[in-house]
């Protein structure tokens, strides 16, 4: 037997979707997490409800790397439909666990193979026949636990969490797990090198998905009006709001401080959102792909009439319906420019579950401050998978409601600034003062519209009035640079090469930089967190000879930056892969090395 490999390998489980295996996989993930081992789990599922092959990959990394890996040391093969592929996928020197009722050839002599007597174990465990299918996936949890040396108490903790402390299902599942572990101890002889051992690297951390984080962030950001329409992978964002809002935002008198409407489609969803924001409520919607395309016209209206809305796009693979259960960053360009007639929008780019929470509330502050739509671009990987995270931090700043005038503000405002006009630039920053429907002050009202208007919101077709209006909008967009979350830079001493990335690729970049360092290439890293780009970004680009822009699309950020900084554009190199899977550190390393000398 070779040297032990401890806490540093990947496990992939191949099952059928709709078979309940998700509970088993999360149990493994959570138990490992509670053992203090850095761990990450990725779900690769088909776009249907039941019966198709689906995979779940768990990566343990004692060094704390949480990006996806392409390789799996351990494969648990439960699905005859994907069996051949699953067997082939085991890394040489790795391990295959498989359901022994699958009678298919296993032609590999470079791996360890453990059959699992699933049916027999379930039967012997005395599980009532109506529950058998439900719990049969727990067998591999037990066997794996035994063979890797997982802590049974932590498994119990994971199950308690999953079943919200309900004793009966926990007990049934624990029984199966224990029986399976026992069966493994009695029937399988360990000949592989893979082990888990407790560490202390997850202490103080939580596990959460980005959509839950975003929902909670929005709740702490005071979200009030939400129009939405279900679409994978954005659905759970609002569903989590529905779950947490009653407990966090019910008023003392029992009424709701919010209104969520599942609308008939995305055109209505964004319309409701705009209406709510126009009346001064904090309003948002959440969607993906097709949903954003449908919102184009309405977003143009919000832009031109300057209504502060927040739109979450939990990105999936396009074009069109694309691969709706796969992750991508393909909508950056669209978010930046959405709608006809020369529009440009603010885009926030959360790079972690923690930032999903943070931008969840901050997006409202930016939107209301800037009086314009703000897009927040998450993705399926960030939104739906479980990530380790620092605990969510309570907002460190009071709400910024921006330049809003209520009844009591009018007198002082007009005394100082003269007659108020909805679209008048008073402060020279392009941001006017707004009133909202419901303000009862005589003279606070105005007529909002998508047509040309003057500073007093009167209809106008005058060419000069039009141009002045657009100039102010452009000035406002410049002002936004001061209000969006700034980029975060991590430098290595003596690096000449820079990497720019954003969103869910962060863990892969972090790891890739270590890999590149091992190849002798030092890199500085700027993680972009918003558009428009800030001075920080411009300086970073100017300060480096060559910049790799890593993204999961065809090079959209490189395009956007090129336009902002044409003089620097030739040193921007795209490193892109967009195949539905989150990037791996190895791929980034190889791609950057290959392009280094060009």
């Amino acid at each position: 037997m070779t040297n032990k490999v401890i806490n540093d390998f990947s496990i992939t489980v191949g099952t059928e979707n709709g078979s309940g295996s998700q509970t088993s996989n999360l149990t493994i993930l959570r138990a490992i997490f509670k053992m203090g081992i850095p761990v990450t789990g990725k779900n690769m599922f088909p776009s249907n409800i039941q019966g198709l092959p689906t995979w779940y990959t768990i990566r343990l990394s004692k060094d704390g790397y949480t990006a996806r890996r392409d390789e799996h040391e351990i494969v648990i093969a439960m699905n005859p439909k994907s069996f051949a592929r699953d067997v082939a996928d085991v890394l040489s020197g790795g391990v295959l666990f498989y359901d022994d009722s699958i009678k298919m050839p296993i032609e590999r002599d470079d791996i360890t193979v453990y059959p699992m007597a699933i049916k027999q174990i379930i039967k012997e465990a005395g599980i009532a026949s109506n529950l058998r299918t439900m719990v049969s996936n727990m067998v591999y949890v037990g066997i794996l636990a035994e063979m890797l040396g997982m802590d049974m108490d932590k498994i119990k903790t994971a199950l308690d969490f999953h079943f919200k402390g309900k004793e009966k299902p926990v007990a049934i599942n624990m029984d199966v797990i224990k029986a399976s572990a026992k069966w493994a101890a009695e029937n399988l002889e360990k000949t592989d090198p893979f082990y888990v051992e407790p560490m202390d690297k997850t202490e103080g951390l939580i596990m959460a998905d980005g959509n839950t984080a975003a929902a909670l962030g929005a709740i702490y950001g005071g979200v009030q009006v939400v129009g939405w329409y279900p679409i994978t992978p954005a659905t759970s964002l609002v569903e989590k709001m529905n779950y947490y809002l009653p407990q966090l935002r019910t008023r003392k008198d029992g009424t709701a401080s919010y209104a969520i409407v599942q609308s008939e489609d995305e055109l209505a969803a964004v319309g409701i959102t705009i209406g709510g924001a126009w009346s001064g409520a904090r309003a948002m919607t959440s969607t993906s792909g097709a949903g954003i395309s449908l919102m184009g016209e309405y977003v143009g209206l919000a832009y031109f009439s300057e209504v502060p809305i927040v739109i979450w796009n939990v990105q999936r693979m396009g074009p069109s319906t694309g691969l709706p259960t796969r992750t991508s960053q393909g909508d950056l360009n669209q978010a930046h420019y959405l709608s006809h007639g020369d529009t440009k929008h603010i885009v926030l780019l959360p790079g972690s579950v923690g930032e999903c929470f943070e931008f969840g509330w901050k997006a409202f502050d930016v939107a209301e401050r800037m009086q314009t739509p703000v897009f927040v671009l998450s993705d399926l990987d960030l939104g739906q998978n479980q990530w380790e995270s620092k605990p969510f931090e309570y907002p460190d700043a009071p709400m910024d409601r921006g330049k809003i005038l209520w009844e009591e503000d009018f007198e002082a405002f007009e005394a100082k600034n003269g007659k108020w006009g909805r679209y008048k630039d008073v402060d020279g920053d392009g941001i006017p003062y707004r009133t909202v429907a419901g303000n009862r002050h005589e003279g606070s009202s105005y007529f909002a519209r998508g047509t040309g208007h003057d500073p007093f919101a009167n209809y106008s077709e005058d060419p000069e009035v039009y141009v002045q209006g657009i100039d102010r909008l452009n000035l406002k967009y410049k002002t936004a640079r001061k209000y969006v979350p700034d980029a975060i830079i991590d430098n290595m001493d003596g690096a000449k090469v820079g990497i720019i990335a954003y969103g869910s690729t962060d863990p892969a970049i972090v790891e890739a930089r270590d890999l590149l360092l091992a190849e002798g290439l030092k890199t500085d890293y700027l993680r972009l967190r918003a558009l428009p780009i800030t001075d920080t970004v411009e300086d970073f680009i100017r300060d480096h000879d060559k910049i790799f822009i890593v993204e999961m699309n065809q090079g959209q950020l490189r395009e956007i930056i090129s336009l902002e900084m044409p003089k620097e554009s030739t040193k921007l190199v795209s490193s892109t892969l967009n195949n539905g899977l989150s990037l791996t550190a190895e791929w980034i390393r190889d791609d950057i090395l290959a392009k280094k000398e060009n």
Partner: protein
Amino acid sequence: MARTNNIGLTKNDYKGAPTTLCQGCGHNSILSQVIAACYEMDMVPEDIVKFSGIGCSSKAPTYMLKRSFGFNGLHGRMPALATGSLLGDHTLTGVAMSGDGDSASIGMGQFKHILRRNVPLVYIVANNGVYGLTKGQLSPTSEVGLTLKKQGTNQFEPIDICLEAMASNATFVARSFAGDPKQVKTLIKAALRHNGTAIIDIISPCVSFNNQDSSVHSYAWGKANEFPIHDISFIPARDEIMVEDFEEGTTQSVTMHDGSKIQLKKLERDYDPTDRISAVQIIEEAKANNMLLTGLIYIDPDRPSLMDILNLPETPLNRLPVEDLRPAPDTIQAINAAMF
């Protein structure tokens, strides 16, 4: 001195910018009746909010209630905007103006779904059977056989706004005629007090593109073929109801959410607008017989509105204090603990 209403405002306080609609356009008479109704009902203009889509009809809100907020949205997508805005401040009274193209063509989906949600809103469809603003195309409410200059002759069955509203379980469905200002005004008054979406389909002739005498959306046709199903009057809640208030001949009285009353006087036939089945029947009948039946076709004053269902506070959402918006700092521990 100009006459004032009970809250000391003149009619002028309810007016808007000068109309830029064509002279004689039915939409102008409708908007005058909105002005008159609000004036007579002593509405505070600041308590009203106006919505519209795109079209000549949708321009109308600019020409009324200048002291109210208003939003001229997108073609066919006014209902969503109104829904969101009224959720933001449900103490406002929403008044919306749409067209037949705006509501029955591009806006069909939103039209139907605002009814499903029963969002409190006076929803007027200024129905001229034509696209006015884009200069005379056929609309989904154009009758079979209507011939327009650049378009030829319509061969598709028209959409009936009221029947559509009934199919979608609307709680207030009325039809009127811009040439019958008194009825229009009364219906608007009742609609202003309805706790739900109040659809008023008003035949509103387009004098520029669809006013041939033979057209069912023309003044001439309307004058000749209007049959009111009852004589309708409205008594606001604050006016104490005395026995004498029951006008002679009143056959039915419907009590609104706020205590206001709609009184109906029988004309040719008995008609009970609280009965769904007869409402659907009478619309079908009018359709089959080519009549312009007008009046309050259906009303259900009691179905909960979206605001009721969502359990909104008395204070509108847009005025809630920050304590109601951001959970207290101590809640965050529990949330983090609830993750894993």
